Each structure stands twice: as structure tokens, then as C-alpha cells.
């Protein structure tokens, strides 16, 4: 049952990221790779929230993996990593939090609206932090290796 759920989630993550990459006009033959980065990111997020790691940390972890895969494909396909990480983070982007924020603000429950506003900002920063963290690790690793050789 859990396996089935995981399969469903990864399939949908793949579809949304690959579809979104086509909307952003990534060359069609590169779209499946963008889909894979989105799929892995979403599965990491799904599993880590189920393990109880919290929303922000799960987003950070997922973005970290997305950037890792994007950089890997960027090196192998010789094209910018942007082609893979922008569609990859699509399922993570805080659309839901933004929507609930407006909904509650319109309905007059300002306290709940503020709660979701802070949540949306936090998620955005967590995603960016995950991407940047992998970049930093990547650079540090290469500098270390260059010094040794």
C-alpha cells in the first residue's frame, strides 16, 4: 500500500515537472530529465514529511537533491542546470500556502492569513537554501579535489 502510494506520487511528480518544463520551452528531448529531477525531489519531500522532519527541512532536503541531479545532468548534457532545476522545484513551490493566505485574508481571519504568509516565505527561503547549499558543497568538493591532485 505504501509502495503503491509512493509509485503514484513519483509518477505524478514526473508528469508535472516534465510538463512544466515543456511549458517553459525546454527542448523536448531534455524534458524527461527535468521530469526525473522533479520526481526525485518530490519523493524526497513526501518521504521526509511522512517521517516527521517538518515542512521547512523537507523542502530544503528536496531542493538539495533536485540541485544535485540538475548539476549532474548539466555536466553530462553540457547545458545550464537551470533547465532542470526550475521545472524540478515546481511541485515544491508554495502555491498552496499563498492560496490559503489570500483565502483567509479575504474571509477576514487575518491571524490565519499571517500564519500562511510566514509559511509561504519560509518555504521559498528553504527551497533556495537547499539549492545554494548543494552549490556550495559542489564547489567545496571540487576545490578540495583540485588541491589534492
Amino acid at each position, binding site marked *: 500500500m505504501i509502495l503503491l502510494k509512493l509509485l503514484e506520487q513519483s509518477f505524478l511528480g514526473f508528469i508535472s515537472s516534465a510538463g512544466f518544463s515543456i511549458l517553459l520551452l525546454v527542448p523536448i528531448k*531534455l524534458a524527461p530529465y527535468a521530469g526525473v529531477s522533479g520526481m526525485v525531489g518530490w519523493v524526497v519531500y513526501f518521504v521526509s514529511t511522512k517521517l516527521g522532519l517538518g515542512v521547512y527541512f523537507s523542502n530544503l532536503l528536496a531542493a538539495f537533491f533536485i540541485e544535485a541531479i540538475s548539476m549532474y545532468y548539466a555536466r553530462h548534457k553540457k*547545458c*545550464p542546470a537551470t533547465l532542470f532545476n526550475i521545472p524540478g522545484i515546481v511541485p515544491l513551490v508554495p502555491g498552496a500556502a499563498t492560496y490559503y493566505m489570500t483565502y483567509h485574508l479575504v474571509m477576514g481571519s487575518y491571524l490565519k492569513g499571517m500564519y500562511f504568509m510566514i509559511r509561504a516565505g519560509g518555504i*521559498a527561503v528553504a527551497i533556495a537554501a537547499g539549492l545554494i547549499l548543494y552549490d556550495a558543497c559542489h564547489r567545496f568538493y571540487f576545490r578540495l579535489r583540485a588541491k589534492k591532485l
Partner: protein
Amino acid sequence: MENTSLLLETCAVVGQVMLENGAEMYRVEDTMNRIAGETGSVGVSFVTPTIVMIGLEETEHVKMKRVTDRTTNLSVVQLVNTYSREYTEGKINLGQLLKKVKEVNQHKMTLSTWLKILIAAVVSGSLMIVLGGAWSDFFVTCFIGGVGYSVYLLSQRFLRLKYFDEFIAAFCIGLLTLFFAKIGIGHTTDHMIIGSIMPYVPGLALTNSIRDLQQGHLLSGISRGVEVIIIAAMLAIGIAVAFRLAL
């Protein structure tokens, strides 16, 4: 002299084309500096979302280009990246690079409208389920997402008002969802709306803005961040108006 002006022109055009199609600031500056550095001179570039400037350290020449409309077309970014790499590897010369980049920008890869709408519909449906909706609402959400995206494209083509496209698309999505909920087809209203507005949520601008801030491009980071806030607010206002009308 002839050479310098050709070099500066090429750098500026490459920067302009990359910026118009949604590349990050540090990638644009890096590419421009690398092309300028190939001839042995040191390039000094300054890039914000609206302007591209390039000068050479040892001459007095500065080339400037204005960037007015920015869209997202990552295939152009990829091609320009490939060509500039070919240039720095010495496979093509400066004149060829300029010609190729201009050609890419004139004959951009585009998708047919129907394909775009179809993909937006499928993406809306699958994102709705990913974010916690029910399978029974899948096809309704696809329909709503498709209609929303067609309204978005129509408004982009005929109204030509910046940021109004997102507003009108969100408004239609809100109205349609509430209508379907009222006649008893859709059940998870919240998730249906969230899934359908996902194609307009400015994820690209959001990450680019935070990336730019981290790389030290404060001006670009802040201005892109403001753009994100405006688009998010437009989506929000569109749905809010729909709610007010329907309730």
C-alpha cells in the same frame, strides 16, 4: 578598432538575448565576460533585469542594450550557451557567433497553442493530486486548468497589459471552480484552485531572485523579488474577487 566594436556588439547582443529569455544574472555576466576575455582583454559587464552594459578595461568604449520584454524560453538560453562554448573552444569566430545568436532569437522554438493548453491541463490535474486532492476531481481540474490557460494566452495576445493576464486567469479559475463545486462535480475546492493556478506561480523568478541575492547581485535580486510579489498578489486578487462575487 573594428575588432573592438564587433566584440562589444557581440557581447551585448548575447547578454540581451539571454536576459530576454530568462537566464540568471550571474550566468549572463559570466558568459559576456568570458567572450570578452577570449581576445585577451578584460571585460567589465553590468547587468540588471532591464539593462545590459559591457565595456573593456583598456579602452573607453562601452556598449549598452535595453531589455524591454522578458519571457521564459529556456531553449534559447541553452542554444546561446552552446554557441558561446563553441566560440571559447575556438570552433567558430566572433562574426559567426553574432550571426548565430541573432538567428536563434529570430527563430525561437515555440509550441502550438493547443499543445500548450493540453500540457497546462495535464499539469494542473497532476499537481492537484500531488498537493493532496482526490482522484475523482482529476478531469474537472484538467478542464479548469485548460480553460484558465486559454484565457491567459488570449489575454496575453489581445489585451497586452502586463500582470493583468495572471489576474484574469486566476479570476476565471476561481469562478469555474466555485461553479463546479456548486453543481456538485468538484469536491476538494481548495486543491482544485491550487492545482490550476500552479502554472502561473512565478517559481522561476522566485528562485532566480534568491539566487541573484546570494551571488551579490543585490539590484537584480530585489527587482525580481518585487516582480514575484506583484504576480503573486495578482493571482491572489483574482481569486479573491471570484470568491466575493460567488459567495
